[in-house]
Structures are given as structure tokens and as C-alpha cells.
């Protein structure tokens, strides 16, 4: 992933290089979408639409523009817009009990069922409290700490100053810590 030569190869031979872009970015785009929408089907749709739109955009851009793309932040921008539309659509749907987001692969098959369960609970738990964050904190937190984007890349993807983003990430993390602490105290009370 993040191969510095990929934009050049996309500019020269889009059809030949596009599969590499898909394989290199599908997990991160799916993860971003999953943690922003909370729904695996919506996340798959967002990730696929992101890649399809990227293909058509790359086909229409001048080669020079393709060569200069930062694929990580550019793809994140597309995914964020699509995830926002999906979330808006989901809010207008009749409310149903949220399905647990679940454990989505990356499993260590050698780990026993107890480890699996423990991790599942942790992943589901953290996924749920991230979803409860207000959007202006959730998006920067997910990009910074789930996707590992740099603040410079986030500034490019979100069009906000780095300083603002640092403050929003900090505030988001503090809110998550507070929620976690409150839940733990509730369980041990």
C-alpha cells in the first residue's frame, strides 16, 4: 500500500494498475466506512463506490494530475462523502435494533474461542462508542487512529487546518476515554 510509484503507473496504464489500487486500499476504505456508518453492508457499498468513482475520475483526469495525487487522502475524501450520504439515508430509514458490528476477519485461527470472544467484545464495544461520537470528532478520530492518516493528509482530505484537526482528535479521544471509564465504573459498581 501507499506505493509511491502507483500514481505514475495509474497515469500510464489505468486498466493495468487499477487492481493494485483496489487490493492496496480496499481494507482501509472498508474500515473507514464501517467505523463511520456502523453497518457492514453500507461499508461494503461505500468502499466499492469509492473505488468505482476513483476509477472513472482517474480515467478522466489529465495524466499530470493523476501523477500528483496523494491516493490515501484523495480516496479518503471520496469515501467520507459517500459515507455521509449513506448515514443520512440510514437516519431517514425506520429505526431497527442495531446489529452488532461484529468481528470482521483478521482473526488468528490459532487463538481459542475465548480469545476470539474477548476480542469480539472489545471490537464491538469500541466500535459502538466511536459511533456515538459526534461526527466532527468521529471522522478525525477514525482517520487518525483507525486509518493512520497523517494530520497533513487529513487536512487535505477534510479541508480543515491541522491545528483544528489535532484539537478535534484530542477532544474525541478524551470523550472516548470518559465513556470507557464511565462504563467500567458502571460494571464494577
Amino acid at each position, binding site marked *: 500500500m*501507499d506505493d509511491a510509484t502507483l500514481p505514475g503507473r495509474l497515469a500510464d496504464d489505468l486498466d493495468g494498475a487499477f487492481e493494485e489500487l*483496489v487490493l492496496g486500499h480496499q*481494507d482501509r476504505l472498508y474500515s473507514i466506512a464501517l467505523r463511520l456508518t456502523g453497518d457492514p453492508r453500507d461499508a461494503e457499498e461505500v468502499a466499492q463506490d469509492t473505488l*468505482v468513482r476513483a476509477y472513472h475520475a482517474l480515467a478522466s483526469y489529465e495524466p499530470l494530475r493523476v501523477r500528483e495525487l496523494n491516493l490515501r487522502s484523495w480516496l479518503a475524501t471520496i469515501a467520507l462523502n459517500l459515507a455521509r450520504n449513506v448515514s443520512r439515508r440510514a437516519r431517514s430509514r425506520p429505526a431497527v435494533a442495531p446489529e452488532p458490528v461484529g468481528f*470482521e476477519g*483478521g482473526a488468528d485461527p490459532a487463538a481459542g474461542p475465548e480469545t476470539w470472544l474477548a476480542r469480539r467484545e472489545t471490537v464491538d464495544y469500541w466500535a459502538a462508542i466511536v459511533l456515538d461520537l459526534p461526527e466532527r470528532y468521529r471522522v478525525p*478520530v477514525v482517520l487518525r487512529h*483507525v486509518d493512520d492518516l497523517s494530520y497533513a493528509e487529513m487536512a487535505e482530505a477534510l479541508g480543515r487546518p491541522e491545528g483544528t484537526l489535532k484539537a478535534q482528535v484530542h477532544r474525541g*479521544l478524551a470523550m472516548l*476515554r470518559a465513556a470507557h471509564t464511565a462504563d467500567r465504573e458502571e460494571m464494577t459498581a
Partner: protein
Amino acid sequence: MTRPALPSDDPELASVERALHSLRAAAPPSLATSTLVSVGLADLYASVDSPLGLAFVAWNGRGVSAVAAGDDASAFEASFAADVGRPLRRVETPPPRLAAALARRLSGDRRAPVPVDLRGRSPFERAVLEKAAEIPRGEVRPYGWVAREIGRPKAVRAVGSALGHNPVPLVIPCHRVVRGDGTLGQYSMGGPQAKRAVLSTEGLDVGELERLATRGIRYIGSDTTGVFCLPTCHHARRVTDRHRVTFRSATDGFAAGYRPCRRCRPAAAA
């Protein structure tokens, strides 16, 4: 190169950051395939019913990319690999909307919305195939008609060759293009017998077409309208026996004071 966040100095924040890292998930295995299919870099295929029995149909997000008669999947895959070369995967059925439109198109409805993927075909081949797609069900046109309609009146043999290499027979009805003498000619999807069978299921009286051909009749006119048509034109079939006149050539039609039909355009205007 990845840029892991520096763990926070605050141990509690650091544990929050670790938890967030565990929220990365692997995309479902179907994602890459559906993406590549959607942009036309990979194809799916399924077996469907056609007027010629079971047929394989391959498609991607740009349209239907291959059609072939038969039920031998490995033969279909081998010919797709040789002709097209993109990754190909078998599925149970086409997506519902495509399946419905395909069923209509395979039964002869040229207006059923079935996009086709003709990448890799020359502009000439595309023009030939797109022109063939305009011929209505139950009618046929000569190779020379296609050549004239696309502005290459002398390229009759090349038209035959382009139709012979039609990657999507039935979806693009190359079977509706026949020889100038009125006989059926070749067919890539199973030879002349298959061509006769499809045209018959579309309601064309192939026997009558061949009888006219044997008698040297190429055009049918109406003495009430003064118009002459190709024999299978919808308008020609409505002419009653009493008013029906026949011509062996367009020149004969013009000489008799008739003009060519505007629907089937049997000849260049005199």
C-alpha cells in the same frame, strides 16, 4: 510506508489509541471482484435460456461482453480467455434487472435495454454491430444494406466478417443480416441451420424469403403508394396481393416510377 500514531504519554489515552487500532477490518472477499467487474476489468458469466437452447452470457459493468451457445463451461471460459483475456467468474444468474432485459432481448426485442461492451472492436466493427442492432425482429437486411447504411457501400465482405466475429450474438442480432440474393448465409452461433431456427422463432417466414430469392425477387412494391421495400419490411408485408408488385432490382423499381421505402431504406435514392 505507514505512519503509526505516536502513543500518547497519557497511559489511558494510549490504551484508547490501541483499541482504535483494533477497529481496522478486512474488506469482504467479494469487494475486489465486484469493484473490478463494475469498472469492466473483470467479468461474470451465467448460463441462460435462449432461442437456441442454453447459452452462456458474460457481462461486466459496461455491458454484456460475450454470448455463446452451449453448456460446456470450460469451453466458454477457454474462448473468453483467448478472445477477451479478462478474469472471468461463473455465477448462478445475472443480476435481476439484466436478467429481465436479457430475456426480452434474447427473445428478439431490440428495445430491451441491454448495454453491450464492445471494447477492443474497431470503429468499423462497432458501426456494423450497432447497425445490425437496429434491425427489427421478424425482418432481415442484406450485408450490402449494412455497408451502405454505415457509409461504406463497398465494404460488403468486411461487414460479413465483422458480423461473423460478433462477440454477442442474439443480443446483437447478426442473424438478421442475410446475403444480397436473399439466401440466409453464414451464422457464427451454430451455422445456417441455427440462423434459420432463430429467424423462424422471431416470426420470419424463411421459406417464403427463400422462394422469393429463387425467383430472383429482391423488392416488393405497392401500386397504391408507389413505394418499394425489402421483402421482410413491415410495410411490404402489409401490401395485399392485389396491389403487390415485385422488382428484381432497385433500378427496375426506380424505372417503374417507385421510390424506396423510408423505413427499410432498400436502396440509395436514385
